[in-house]
């Protein structure tokens, strides 16, 4: 296999793996945070404003790891530096 197709194969497989593995952790984390927030809102409905605001910010922070994985996958597929090096 020449280097161009090797780079293509590896990039596509790895970008798929990046999204697949990289979204597991944030998904679990967000689910946990959401379930905790829901039970806290059920216990203290008066504080729902503060809880949901903190929840949103926390979710955004958890989600940023998934976003990093997504950006890496996008880089591997669309603007792969090694690919452009080989193909000119």
């Amino acid at each position, binding site marked *: 296999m020449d280097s161009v197709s090797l780079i293509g194969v590896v990039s596509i497989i790895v970008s798929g793996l990046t999204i697949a593995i990289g979204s597991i952790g944030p998904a679990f984390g967000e689910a946990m945070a959401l379930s905790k927030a829901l039970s806290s809102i059920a216990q203290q409905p008066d504080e729902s404003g503060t809880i949901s*605001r903190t929840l*949103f*910010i926390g979710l*955004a922070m958890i989600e940023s790891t998934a*976003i*990093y994985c*997504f*950006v890496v996958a*996008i880089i591997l597929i669309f*603007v792969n530096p090694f690919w452009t090096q080989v193909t000119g």
Partner: protein
Amino acid sequence: MNVEVNLTPDSIVFWQWGFVKLNATIVFTWAVMLLLVIGSILITRNLSTGQKISRWQSMLETIVSAIRKQIADMTQQKADPYIAFLGTLFLFISVSNLLAVVPYFESPAGSLTTAAALAVCVFFAVPIFGILKQGLPGYLKQYIEPSPLMLPFNIIGELSRTLALAVRLFGNVMSGSLIIGVLLALAPLFVPVILQVLELLIGQIQAYIFAALATIYIASATRVRAHQEEKIKQRGEA
């Protein structure tokens, strides 16, 4: 099947002269700025304090007082010193994501340069507000708390959260337009509309989160001293 994907509005160049490029990001940023500035000037030109206010003034008052309340809640301080900066951040991102429903408009927040520029603004605003509030020594003292061993980690944290801020905004907005682009090739009739609605929601949430995180960073840089004073007072009473 050929999927035309524009990863960033930077790649759409309207006008070029040497190395000076006028790309879609700059043009649409100017458009959003013009819309915000001219809209605000037109609305605030004839404000009234009477019983009957115009619809536009009512809208602007609602927005401003909501932002003010959020900032006051989050920082537990008066919102006045911060509302100019944080409100502008929120309104800029929010309007540029909202205008994504306009055909041919690409949200400037979907370009890494805009997101990075906004994040760098926050990066510099945090020490400025911190120093204004508690003086240079008081601000610098934060970096060696709870112990001087934490100095490198505090500095790394400062840099990495700026990076996170930029990549989060860029990734979220860019992924939306990318998904819509892919769906236009797969199922162009109805499905992209639903995703576009979802994308509007995500754009607003991201605008809120960007502004909220900036608020929290500024609050943490300005609130330490008040907290310590409280502690000292409590000790004195006990």
